[in-house]
């Protein structure tokens, strides 16, 4: 076996793969969250649809998104590999084990939390990603006044296979900018009208919070980074940013649509 292959097939190497893919997925969450904040804009989804178009059609981002899909799959596969090896490492179970005396619940249940997240990602991508790419969605036509960008008229344009996903023209005579884009915003709006669907999202965000409270700091531990100066910062970010802020912000989206849209 080459040195490289040997490193990554060892127990430590497999953990390293988990850590690196995990951190990459964490950075993606930040990008995803910032983009999704467009949902809260009061513009009938114009900014959000423009963002969806940008994310799916700008080449560097497309490359990163394939890296992302690969990371999700590798993270899950390595988790399965490590878990099955770890199970084999203790063939006879203890009759009594007081694990809560020596370790945090989150740290012992990353597999369950990760499974919830994996199911969530499949459902979530099926509902938005897949529909955006493959379903015959109607378009939204925005007429935006050039004088007052807050003056937006929106109307629906039926699906047309020949139409571009996103197009923009400026009509100076009419004093208007006309944007026509595939209406993912409508899909989002419709999805979050069902209470159990909203609940599913909120539960998944709880799982995300618990997964990252352990996962974020754990990744730095696995990379071998324990400088006394920075580790408190890593722990702080792990708990407050990835364990609280980000999951709450994501969970706020379906709740907001359910209650107000």
């Amino acid at each position, binding site marked *: 076996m080459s040195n490289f292959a040997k490193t990554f097939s060892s127990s430590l190497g497999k*953990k390293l793969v988990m850590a690196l893919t995990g951190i990459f997925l964490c950075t993606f969450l930040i990008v995803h969250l910032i983009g999704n904040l467009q949902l809260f804009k009061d513009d009938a989804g114009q900014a959000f649809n423009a963002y969806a178009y940008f994310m799916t059609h700008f080449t560097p981002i497309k490359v990163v998104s394939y890296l992302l899909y690969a990371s999700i799959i590798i993270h899950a596969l390595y988790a399965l590999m490590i878990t099955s090896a770890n199970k084999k490492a203790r063939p006879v*179970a203890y009759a009594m084990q007081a*694990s809560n005396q020596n370790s945090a619940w989150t740290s012992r249940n990353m597999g369950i939390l990760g499974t919830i997240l994996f199911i969530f990602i499949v459902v979530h991508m099926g509902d938005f990603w897949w529909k955006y790419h493959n379903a015959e969605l109607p378009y939204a036509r925005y007429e935006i006044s050039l004088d007052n960008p807050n003056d937006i008229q929106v109307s629906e344009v039926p699906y047309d296979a020949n139409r571009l996903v996103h197009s923009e023209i400026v009509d100076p005579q009419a004093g208007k900018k006309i944007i026509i884009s595939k209406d993912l915003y409508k899909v989002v709006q419709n999805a979050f009208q069902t209470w159990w669907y909203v609940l599913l999202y909120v539960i998944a965000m709880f799982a995300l919070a618990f997964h990252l409270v352990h996962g974020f700091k754990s990744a730095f531990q696995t990379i071998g980074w324990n400088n006394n100066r920075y580790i408190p910062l890593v722990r702080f970010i792990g708990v407050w940013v990835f364990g609280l802020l980000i999951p709450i912000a994501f969970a706020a989206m379906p709740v907001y649509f359910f209650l107000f849209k």
Partner: protein
Amino acid sequence: MNLTLKVWRQPDTNSEGNFETYKANDVSEDMSFLEMLDTVNENLIEDGVEPVAFDHDCREGICGMCSLFINGRPHGPLHGVTTCQLHMRSFKDGDEIVIEPWRANAFPVIKDLVVDRTSFERIQQAGAYISVNTGAAGDANQIPVPKNDADESFAAATCIGCGACVAACKNSSAMLFVGAKVSQFALLPQGQPEREKRVLAMVNQMDEEGFGACTNTGACSAECPKEIPLSVITRLNREYLRASLTSKD
């Protein structure tokens, strides 16, 4: 005090084991846990029953021979204490105490509560040594060692190789032990010549012995009788990564 013990009995490695219940009566709270087991065994011998086998040697917390998973925790309920240093005052009259051996694929049961921990020896043999020139002894303190490094190295070297870390870990991972052994050398100038070779060989042996992979639960460090910190695992990860990238062989 009077206690009920549920003790794991297993005649040998290949036989099935099961729990037997024994009474331990008139136990003094000043007895150590192992002395309590000694008296139980004396009674068993009188009754013509095979005594319970368990490991021990120094009985003063330094050799690492005693083990025992007591009420779901390695070395029992106290922090930073080996089983031989656990006293019966940590229990109360009427308690039921469940006693199991360390359970790990890499620590097969030899008999009852005694497990084979030679997998640790083989990990040590794979790399936990340094090269020393023979001849006249060098001057003490000839090689400068920063105080912090010396302290950290010494703290890591207090690991007694008992295996409680493996026993506590839900993955039966030996990384706290291996981390301690790698740290104690990696921090000192004397450990540098074999630095890369050591960590690669020890991790390799650890994997071959069938220990699991760490998921950073921290159970090992919380249960370690010598309170070896989790940061030795961070160092192990770092040393391994460094060696993988820079090792010349």
